């Protein structure tokens, strides 16, 4: 099955997109199909995300793009020493994006971008071997970004805007590796909060030295999502321990890291365009996931992520007035250091293949489709910072993951 699919992908010269940590790089069907390149590509309203400066290079008066993807994440875990063999039962998540740009005049454009660049949805079987680290997590952040772009000369433009992020988290794990109540139910905790607001910004510049070459740079700031007073629900707590594990609230910080993108695209002719992007994601901000509870308990979970890079390549081929084909590839470096491989985001370096096409169904409407396949090599890894009664109990084994992301979108122009 796997081999056959690989063959099909290779034949179609496809490329792919997703990203390390809990970054979900699915911010546009057209860009995704081209290896999620875009900091130097002016294609449709998606540019409001990839590089706001590019909005004023759009030719249309009004451009609107909407897209959504279905993320199928498969996680397999095994441990040779103890014979564990577990597969996550992840629900399908559906990140989406909506962009609109409007040309006020030749120089000035306004836009709006709504997108979901971070998230994680992982569900392991209840009480699996690593349930003291995570049983399930649903993490999501929606970004709202009003955007402005100004063309300084015919060759240079700038753009940017503030970002309002609305985050939500729901996370469940067992309190330790073994304790149950008298009915055999494991002691667990769920933390839950939604609508956590936070602010950031994006800014970019685009440079077109020639008709064919475009260069771009974009920076999106870190946004620190600070959960305060979220709901903490302790489950299956014995009567005599109710005081110690009282339900209440929790506080936690989750930094959504800054990202710097630089790239270039080259239009060979009316049909062919290639793009190269480099992303630097400043994951260093994510040093720990620490949760403090209103009952006085604290959960200390070192993460110690390191800054990571993504190398992207994409191409576009306009076959006819009706069809445009795209493909791409990117290599996504994991921000996770050795010994910090926690099963809630079990991501090692990945090779990503993407493909897609647009169908111009009318002068104004186009359907955009994309597909991403994320390939992770099998990895032996462990999380070595879980402590129980003052002793460290590493948890690890072999992980093998993959992700399939079909996506569909629509572009409207006026």
């Amino acid at each position, binding site marked *: 099955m*796997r081999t056959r699919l690989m063959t099909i992908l290779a034949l179609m010269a496809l490329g792919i997109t997703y990203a390390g940590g809990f970054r979900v790089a699915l911010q546009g069907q057209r860009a995704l199909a081209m290896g999620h390149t875009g900091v130097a590509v002016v294609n449709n309203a998606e540019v409001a995300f990839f590089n706001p400066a590019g909005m004023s290079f759009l030719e249309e008066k009004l451009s609107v793009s909407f897209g959504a993807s279905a993320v199928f994440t*498969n996680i397999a875990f*095994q*441990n040779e020493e103890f*014979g564990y063999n577990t597969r996550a039962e992840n629900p399908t998540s559906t990140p989406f994006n909506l962009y609109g740009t409007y040309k006020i005049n030749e120089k000035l454009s306004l836009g709006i971008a709504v997108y979901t660049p971070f998230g994680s949805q992982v569900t392991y079987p209840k009480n699996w071997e690593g349930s003291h680290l995570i049983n399930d997590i649903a993490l999501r952040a929606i970004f709202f970004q009003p955007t402005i772009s100004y063309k300084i000369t015919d060759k240079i433009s700038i753009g940017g805007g503030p970002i309002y992020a609305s985050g939500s988290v729901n996370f469940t794990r067992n309190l330790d590796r073994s304790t149950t109540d008298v009915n055999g139910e494991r002691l667990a905790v769920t933390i839950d909060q939604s609508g956590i607001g936070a602010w950031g910004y994006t800014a970019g510049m685009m440079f077109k030295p020639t008709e064919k070459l475009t260069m771009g740079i974009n920076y999106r700031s870190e946004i620190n999502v600070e959960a305060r007073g979220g709901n903490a629900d302790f489950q299956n707590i*014995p009567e005599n321990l109710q005081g110690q594990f009282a339900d209440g609230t929790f506080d936690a910080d989750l930094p959504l890291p800054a990202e710097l993108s630089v790239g270039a695209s080259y239009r060979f002719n009316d049909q062919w365009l290639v793009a190269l992007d480099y992303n630097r994601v400043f994951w260093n901000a994510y040093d720990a996931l620490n949760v403090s509870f209103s009952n006085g308990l604290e959960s200390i979970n070192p993460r110690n992520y390191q800054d990571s890079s993504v190398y992207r390549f994409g191409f576009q081929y306009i076959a006819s007035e009706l069809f445009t084909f795209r493909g791409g590839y990117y290599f996504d470096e994991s921000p996770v250091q050795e010994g910090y491989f926690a099963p809630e985001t079990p991501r090692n370096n990945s090779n990503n293949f993407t493909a897609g096409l647009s169908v111009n169904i009318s002068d104004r409407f186009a359907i955009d489709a994309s597909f991403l396949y994320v390939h992770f090599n099998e990895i032996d890894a462990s999380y070595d910072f*879980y402590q129980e009664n003052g002793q460290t109990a590493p948890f690890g084994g072999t992980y093998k993951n993959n992700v399939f992301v*079909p996506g569909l979108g629509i572009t409207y122009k006026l």
Partner: protein
Amino acid sequence: MRKLLYISAALALFSSCEPEFNEPVDEVGFYDQGEVDLTNYVALGNSLTSGYADGALYLDAQQSSYPNILASKFALAGGGDFTQPLMNDNIGGLLLNGTPIAATRLVLNFDQNGNPLPVNLEGTPTTEVTNTLEGPFNNMAVPGAKSYHLVAPGYGNIAGIGTSANPYFARMASSSETTVLADAAAQNPTFFSIWIGNNDVLTYAISGGTGVDQTGNLNPASYANNDITDPNVFAATTSQVVSAMTANGAKGVVINIPDVTKIPFFTTVPNNALVLNAEQAQQLTLFFQAVAGITTQGLIDQGVPAAQAQQIASQYAITFNEGPNRWLIDTPASQTNPLGFRQMTEEERIVLTIDQTALRTAGYGSVAISNEVLQVLGKLQAGATITEAEAGLVLAAINGIDDKDALDNEEINAINTARSAYNTTLSGLAQQNDLILLDFESLYEEIVLSGYQYNGGEITTTFGTGGAFSLDGIHLTPRGYAVVADEIIRAINESYDANIPGVDPGNYPTIFVQ
């Protein structure tokens, strides 16, 4: 419509493209049973093999019995299904014709001062013994069984419960006259484990040595439950068991018997917990000087020469010190110890079930000093003479620990002599039949001395908090049983050239808080 069909087909495709490992652990051939055949594993034993914990057999504990843990790992290396005579609930305890005959499990509660206190879980047992189960079961362990019970016909006869039969075996026996061994051997095991013999000394130990050491008596039918089994009886029955289990060439593991006097049931209440302040120590010392004096006088009155009387009575002039002092225990009165008590010695043990309130408040283990006794002591200190009745008051105040609440040196000796003989037998049987001997005796000594370390944790033999022993102080916790299972797997891997995955004790619970 057709589009929908395509979409759902695509979705099915993506979710079925599961990642595959280069060497999946669940693929046949990844693990290996080596020179043994694990397809039909049968376990023989007593409560320790049944999963019994917290003073009861109950569902969750059975799931963590070491044979069941073993079987779950065997299954990855070619092992077959493993069945157990499961209880009906997590309450524990048994009903016989609707009447409770075994208590519910112990759970940890706390008294009004916040001190931990094991209590029986509230509730009525729902496991009715007369609802006999459809066997046979791979786990043939019978809580309470001694070596000779495995070959005793009628041990599963419901009519004999309370006398010659065992309710746990009655639940699963194939007939009222069958034996445990017959039902086990009839399953044609390809692999077996035997851990029997604990109860042959343990019931004696738990009774505080009130039973009889039956060494020399070859007729187990004449034994009472609290007696020590004769080592020859043990040898004969275990030989018979091993012969029957190996009849078809099955391999197996034999587990030997640890020092039962070092389980928390005997090590939790210290033998020197008589903690005194300076004043109390002085008062007690004076009291026993008075006892020595009264005894001297009494012996002289009975015609014992004065020097001899003084010498005999001097054993009662016990000096007590500020801080911890050893308890007094009752011993049979004799010519050399006419009052029948003495102070405990270093190696002697107190049972966990002793009335600790009486120890703390009623002078149990020392002296029950009343005001009347104090008055008599005052008279003596003032140099006045006392009446015989007053002397009697003093002697009657001595409140030594009863035989049933302590293990003295002689009793400990009897237990260990028999146990050593059993272990010699078990070693011999293992060697003669090419079976694995799991030296649990040595392993347990090590755990007593320095605990047992596993990934991210440790168990010790400390009662309650140590993690090895359940709340009855006798039986292991699920985590303790997991350690046993892991040790057995290591032994099989080593001896039989097998590769069976191990057990992580950290994933198994210890005690349960209410």
